[in-house]
């Protein structure tokens, strides 16, 4: 029987929650958590499960991947599965990083699953099969079964169809195939053209990827006169969270006065971000919002002035479109006070 190895984060690996997100990678014989469910229908034996904390992988990707590759050295396996990672941003990046590293070193197929709203998708979809995953672990059964279905095709040597049919994100690879309808390109093109001129819907065979890049804003010419504003997605708010900013998938933001403040104090400010262990930021919010350092640099005359407000939202599970909207709502406040530049701290 063929062999498979599964990668999970600390949560699905049953080590613990955010307080264990720094968990160093470990390899266990047999199956842990979702790997047990996979093993039931996978056409391979899941011989080992690797468990690694999301922050460990996020903060030291090269070192952590190297440790895991060393654990895999000498083991026989035919496929490597990571996740499913759902809408957990760091977990998707971790799955992508380790799958890419494993594929490069051992040359075995790799399969993972992520939600479209996560950063892992655009970072890694060209490098591997990423199934279109759900936005919550409540869909574990479905996402797992989709992963196993694709993995079984790879294990059994069954031809993999277009991404759309397989439920994957397109890798951007074009294959030569014999079409079932036998229609040559010239006919298909004319069909599309006729539909287009008649205002009917049609599906292009060659979508042009949209890359949304923003022109680089010119640098501040004279720092001594510059007014700088601080924003953060680390959820730093007054302890009563007056704007009721959500701990995840935020749609709200707030701005809080720092006029005359030399820093933020624990007990007065805290983080409401649910995507990491809040202990450090609750004790000293300046580890996320460096207002003490900004104030010191202002007093030294390194730059002109600190804008009197800092701005907060929570960046975990928050969709790009909501984030863009919140930023557009914040900009008028910055313009009103003639802010010249922004420092954004993300967690």
């Amino acid at each position, binding site marked *: 029987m063929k062999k498979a190895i599964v990668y999970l984060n600390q949560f699905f690996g049953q080590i613990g929650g*955010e307080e264990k*997100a720094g968990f160093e990678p470990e390899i266990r014989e047999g199956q842990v958590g979702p790997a047990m469910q996979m093993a039931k229908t996978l056409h391979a034996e899941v011989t080992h499960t690797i468990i690694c904390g999301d*922050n460990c992988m*996020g*903060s030291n*990707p090269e070192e952590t991947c190297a440790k895991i590759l060393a654990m895999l050295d000498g083991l026989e396996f035919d496929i490597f599965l990571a996740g499913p990672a759902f809408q957990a*941003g*760091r977990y998707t*990046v971790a799955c992508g990083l380790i799958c890419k590293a494993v594929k490069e070193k051992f040359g075995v197929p790799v399969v993972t699953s992520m939600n479209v709203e996560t*950063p892992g998708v655009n*970072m890694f979809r060209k490098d591997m099969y990423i199934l279109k995953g759900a936005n919550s672990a409540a869909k574990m059964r479905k996402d797992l079964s989709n992963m196993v279905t694709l993995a079984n095709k790879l294990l059994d040597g069954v031809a993999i169809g277009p991404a759309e049919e397989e439920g994957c994100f397109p890798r951007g690879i074009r294959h030569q195939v014999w079409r079932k309808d036998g229609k040559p390109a010239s006919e298909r093109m004319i069909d599309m053209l006729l539909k287009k001129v008649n205002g009917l819907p049609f599906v292009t065979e060659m979508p042009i990827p949209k890359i*949304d*890049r*923003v022109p*680089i*804003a*010119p*640098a*501040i*010419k004279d*720092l001594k006169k*510059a007014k*700088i504003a601080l*924003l953060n*997605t*680390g959820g730093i708010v007054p302890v009563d969270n007056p704007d009721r900013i959500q701990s995840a998938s935020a749609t709200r933001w707030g701005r809080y006065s720092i006029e005359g403040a030399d820093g933020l104090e624990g007990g007065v400010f805290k983080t409401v971000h649910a*995507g*990491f*262990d*809040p*202990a*450090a*930021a609750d*004790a*000293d919010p*300046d*580890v*996320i919002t*460096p207002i*003490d*350092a*900004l104030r010191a*640099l202002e007093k030294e005359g*390194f*730059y002109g002035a600190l804008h009197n407000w800092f701005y907060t*939202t929570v960046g975990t599970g928050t969709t790009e479109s909501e*984030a*863009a909207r919140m*930023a557009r709502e914040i*900009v008028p406040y*910055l313009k009103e006070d003639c*802010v*010249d*530049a*922004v*420092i*954004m*701290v*993300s*967690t």
Partner: protein
Amino acid sequence: MVKEIERTGIPVVHMCNLIPVSKTVGANRMVPTISIPYPLGDPSTPKEDQWKLRYHRTKVAIQAIATDVQEQTVFSV
């Protein structure tokens, strides 16, 4: 958020731990931080060291917005 702000012509520096994510999303000026839960001060180190690290990286960030760049740039700390 970084992109929407920069779109209005205000230069932004993104201080974050997952630089590859920031690059993919499209930030133009980036300064690495040390971790996700405590980007600018490791609580297991003395307060003095945390302050030095935070002061230094914040200064690099301010310098970054006063630096003209031609492409996405990660400033070294």
